[in-house]
């Protein structure tokens, strides 16, 4: 294949990938999840004031919902949101651009480690991958982290081959930035660095004097993150979802005490973690079942299309047999990636294990190359290519149908659908009344701040009334946030008691406030019913006169 042809194919793939990731980005996925709103609004707040929603200046993590988001996505999004305006599109754009960038990085990795055919096949698979399209189209910091990690890996391979210190510097910096982007990378990068250093110790020792400065730079870059590690702001998220939060592991017999062979806590916990770890390699999960959470799922689709399984096996067999340093590092990436996810209790959490799917995609590409190269005759090669392209096209069409039509209707609730419609409606009301928004978790405030593009200073004022955030921002994982701002309140509603509160607008989940609760009451007027895309009522907005 000529260089010109290679470049043309690559550009076509990247442009196609960009289209699939960016077109109608503000509309699909339908709805706008609270974490997205939080990341977007905090980026907006940073742009306008240099402070987050709590009024903390350039924080090292973002406290929103006590999730303690890592900061890099927010800081990189700030100019995008600042220039394009606060919207779903601008909030998601960085993730989409990261996803598009990952196509090129993947091509370079596969070309560096194997050859240009494997590289093109890998890019082809990634371009149309359901998992990558999905995570590139939502505000997922993990997607940015993935691209940064992949770029770090690329430069590491270049460093091993060319022994150029600038590649080492780029690699370590990119790895460090990925650690600032998502929680999983904080563990995986550390482990990967240990393995990479062990495998390349001879080269590192030879170049030790020239490496001192880049290492110092990276340590300085990581200092803010490292300093948080022992504070709730640094560990709350990891500890909060860890398997060790569960009192008893699966397999525990309630009627029995702990003993050597029955209810052996060490064995059962170890077995649980190992089961979770291996589930990330299970074909049933990778090709059929998908994520257990509907917010991270597309109906009827999992991470990979089922027809790619044989190519994955072929690619894995090829890489395992080769045993070059690059292959060992690549496999290290594969086997380290699901570790953070397997330490949490959730079964098959695709977001936490996002780092795994890029190298697996590359392995599918490698498998395609291996099988393509084993075919002898030209026309059989052409038929093979046609078959693969056909399978990709058909699967992608079915995926897009589900993603654009079925999933929005069935899973709109999981994406907090409806708040834009609520805010738009409330802003049309002639008078400014007290608005009470029902939510036991007090989280929709962020949607209101976002869609109304409220200046951050308004919310900062509410936060300050509770006390200085410096006292608790990094040091407490308790839920500390205002219950509202201006004329808005966000809390649980006791309808029986509060239905008599005059001059109040209530925004309630439809199932919490069925029509029977207010029908026939002359004081209560139904203002609007916000419906899900499938026509089911989502929210009822009522006014008490």
């Amino acid at each position, binding site marked *: 294949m000529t260089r010109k042809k290679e470049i043309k194919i690559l550009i076509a793939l990247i442009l196609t990938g960009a289209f699939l990731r960016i077109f109608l980005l503000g509309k699909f996925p339908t709805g706008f999840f609270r974490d997205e709103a939080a990341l977007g609004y905090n980026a907006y707040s940073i742009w306008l004031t240099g402070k987050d929603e709590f009024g903390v200046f350039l924080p090292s993590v973002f406290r929103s919902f006590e999730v303690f988001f890592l900061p890099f996505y927010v800081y990189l999004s700030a100019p995008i949101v600042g220039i394009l305006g606060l919207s779903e599109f601008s909030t998601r754009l960085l993730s989409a651009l990261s996803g598009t960038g990952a196509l090129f990085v993947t091509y370079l990795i596969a070309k560096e480690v194997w050859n240009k055919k494997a590289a093109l096949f890998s890019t082809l698979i990634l371009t149309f991958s359901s998992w990558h399209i999905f995570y590139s189209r939502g505000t997922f910091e993990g997607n940015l982290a993935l691209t940064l990690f992949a770029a770090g890996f690329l430069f590491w391979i270049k460093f091993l081959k060319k022994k150029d210190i600038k590649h080492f510097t780029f690699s370590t910096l990119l790895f460090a930035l990925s650690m600032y982007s998502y929680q999983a990378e904080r563990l995986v990068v550390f482990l990967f660095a240990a393995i990479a250093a062990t495998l390349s110790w001879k080269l590192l020792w030879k170049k030790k004097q020239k490496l001192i400065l880049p290492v110092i730079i990276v340590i300085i870059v990581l200092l803010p993150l490292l300093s948080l590690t022992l504070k709730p702001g640094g560990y709350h998220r990891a500890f909060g979802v860890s398997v060790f939060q569960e009192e008893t592991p699966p397999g525990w017999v309630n009627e029995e005490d702990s003993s050597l062979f029955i209810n052996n806590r060490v064995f059962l916990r170890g*077995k649980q973690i190992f089961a979770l770890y291996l*589930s990330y390699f299970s074909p*049933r*999960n990778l*090709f059929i079942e998908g994520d257990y959470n509907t917010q991270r799922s597309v109906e009827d689709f999992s991470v990979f299309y089922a027809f790619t399984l044989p190519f994955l096996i072929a690619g894995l067999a090829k890489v395992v047999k080769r045993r070059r340093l690059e292959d060992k590092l690549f496999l290290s990436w594969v086997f380290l990636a699901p570790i953070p996810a397997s330490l949490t209790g959730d079964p098959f959490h695709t977001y936490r294990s996002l780092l795994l799917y890029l190298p697996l995609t590359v392995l599918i590409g490698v498998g395609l190359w291996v099988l393509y190269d084993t075919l002898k005759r030209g026309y059989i090669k052409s038929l093979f290519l046609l078959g693969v392209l056909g399978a990709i096209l058909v699967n992608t069409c079915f995926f897009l*149908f589900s993603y654009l039509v079925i999933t929005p209707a069935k899973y709109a609730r999981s994406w907090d659908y409806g708040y834009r419609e609520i805010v738009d409606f409330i802003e049309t009301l002639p008078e400014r009344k007290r608005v009470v928004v029902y939510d036991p978790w007090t989280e929709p405030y962020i949607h209101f701040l976002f869609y109304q593009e409220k200046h951050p200073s308004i919310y900062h004022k509410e936060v300050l009334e509770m006390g200085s955030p410096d006292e608790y921002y990094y040091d407490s994982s308790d839920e500390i946030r205002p219950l509202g701002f201006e004329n808005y309140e966000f809390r649980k509603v006791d309808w029986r008691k509060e239905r008599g509160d005059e001059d109040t607008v209530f925004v309630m989940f439809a199932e919490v406030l069925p029509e029977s609760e207010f029908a026939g009451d002359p004081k209560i007027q139904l203002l609007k019913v916000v419906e899900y*895309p499938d026509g089911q009522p989502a929210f009822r907005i009522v006014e008490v006169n």
Partner: protein
Amino acid sequence: MNKKKFIYLLFLVTAFTRFWKIGEIPAGLSPQEVNFGLNVLGFFGDWVLSPFWIRLPFAVLGTISVFLLYYVVFKLTGDFKTSVLTAFIFSISPWHIQESRIFSLGILIVVGILLAAIVFRKRIGKNLKPLGIVLIVLSFFIFGLSLLKIPQELRVNVDQDRNIASRVETILPARLFSNKFIESYRYRVGLVFENLDIGNYFFKGHPRERWGVEETQKLFIGFLPLLVIGLFKIKRETLLFLAGGFLFAAVSLASFGLRAPTYSLPLLLPISFITALGAKRVLAERKNIYKYLGYLVFFVVLWEFMSFLFSYYSGFEEGRFTPRRPVYEGLVNYTKELDSEEIVVSERLGNPKEYFRFYLKDKNMESYEFSSFNIKEKEDEKGVYIDILPDGAGPSEPLYKKDGKWPEEIDVIGEFYEKNKGQTIVVFRN
């Protein structure tokens, strides 16, 4: 090496794990076991209606299958180590132990496959590659045919999706992307991939247990590294044949919608063989680090085996969707003590007539009536009744407990809780 010692040890382990407490563990009988007993009642008399005699033939066949496997592998490979390791792994696997101790179609299928393998061993040995290809082609053929058989619940899914799609676009794309053929394909592929799930084999379904399917411990975790090593050591033709066989079995199961562990038991045959190859490689290892890793793996297997024995023989291995109903034995014995002319048993208990016939040895059945009833409609009909109260039942349930109290109209004389069904069986006078 004294080969006979290994064979004696194999027999000892196999026989012990299959025959000890066979009448008591697992507790309770499945509907299949009960029906089997009632079917052979006419041939043998009512003495056969006990868990011990119902299960004994399968324990015998299970034991025989271990040695049949040893024989098949020995004849095909000519290697004693490989054959005895295969038989050992087969024998100690929880999957085979559990299936040998119940009425099991899987045991019958395995014995049939092994007997066929013995008869055709020479032809099999010489034609591994073409047989493997034939099995793979047959798998695709069977899969294709199975797509034409569409379960009713899939039609409902199709209608639902089309309903959704019709709101946003014309009917043509909806018909193209959502139709019974596509749903059937997804369903069948899903079933095939269930047999490729690591959790299904090593972790009792965890972390994604299948709803409505009995999940059991099939293999030990310690087998996994041996299985992986064995995959690298196996010859290509053998791998092709075994992979073809595995695929054929998985597709056949998917085609008939069979998901219970008994139906997929034949998959244990290639798994045991490949694991044995891995074990043999580890045993032959001379480098210290790998040798000690090998010892570690064997220690883990031994540990898991002991842990399984303790757990299984204490009755802790029954899963949420076990078909066995240990509650019936106590319930039936309880009713025998009642001084009542007639006892009305609700069909909601699930196969009550068969279970009562079994435990009563098909005698005195005239005292029992089996029907569907609502006790609220039987105010004037006095007598002893047996019905269920599901956990968390609402006021629409006839036996709903308001404020923790039974309905006033009834006098509860006995309660039997069925944990895995999430219900209480209540014996009461009206």
